[in-house]
């Protein structure tokens, strides 16, 4: 589980965060430390897809917010992942 798209969307699912907060959060819940270049590459892509958007801020640290389209996309990704996880676990149990 190291796909930056899903990690970043999942991180923003519970509230706005700036880059460094996302890195810390992702490391906490997924055990993956995204590099700054990887993170901003993903932010760029997700913003182009309109799955996230910047939130007005006084700080140089730019917070981002997940959009409705982003939530829908994340839901789809997680459902697919859930199917894979359930199938894998079931097959392991019967093997």
């Amino acid at each position, binding site marked *: 589980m190291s796909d930056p798209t899903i990690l970043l969307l999942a991180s923003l699912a519970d509230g706005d965060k700036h*880059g*460094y907060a996302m890195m810390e959060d992702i490391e906490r819940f997924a055990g993956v430390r995204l590099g700054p270049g990887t993170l901003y*590459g993903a932010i*760029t892509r997700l913003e182009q897809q309109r799955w996230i958007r910047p939130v007005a801020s006084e700080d140089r*640290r730019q917070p981002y917010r997940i959009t409705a389209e982003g939530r829908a996309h994340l839901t789809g990704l997680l459902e697919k992942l859930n199917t894979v996880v359930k199938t894998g676990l079931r097959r392991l149990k019967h093997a």
Partner: protein
Amino acid sequence: MRWLMALAVRLYPRAWRVRYEEEFRALLEDVNPSWRAALDVLGAAVVMRLKAISLGRIVWLSGLVGLLGGFGTWVLSPNRFVSQAVIKIEGPGFSHRALSDYLAALARGTVSRRSLYKIILDRDLYAAERRREPLEDIAGQMREHITIKPYGTNSALLQFESTDQKLSKRSPTI
């Protein structure tokens, strides 16, 4: 390491920097500087640069690289000169077996040390090399460039290949 990360930011495409540079630099101030982080910033810059290149430019650049590669190969590769002779074998009772036997005999006769010495000396081949190297070594090199193989059903092909045009012309197959 922070200096390397700061330098790497300059490698990002201009359009990207206009939009993200300020906040990206703020993030870089927060992260612990390390080789891993610096390489990550550098790697992402390369990826973005590549993505910023249009398909047309990629095709154009690939074509140019291919053209230059081909030209370089052509310039650097030595010319190969090949002289060939085809010996047709006819006669009563001729068979495939006879062709194989003939080829084996031809090979033995042609590439034997004695035969090659005679060809080299009689035709004054490898004159410059003979001043530097023993005749045995030169015969060994020559043997590697001689090919004898079946050609059709009743012929044998003798071929001598060289990067030296004069040598190829004076080779034993002519």
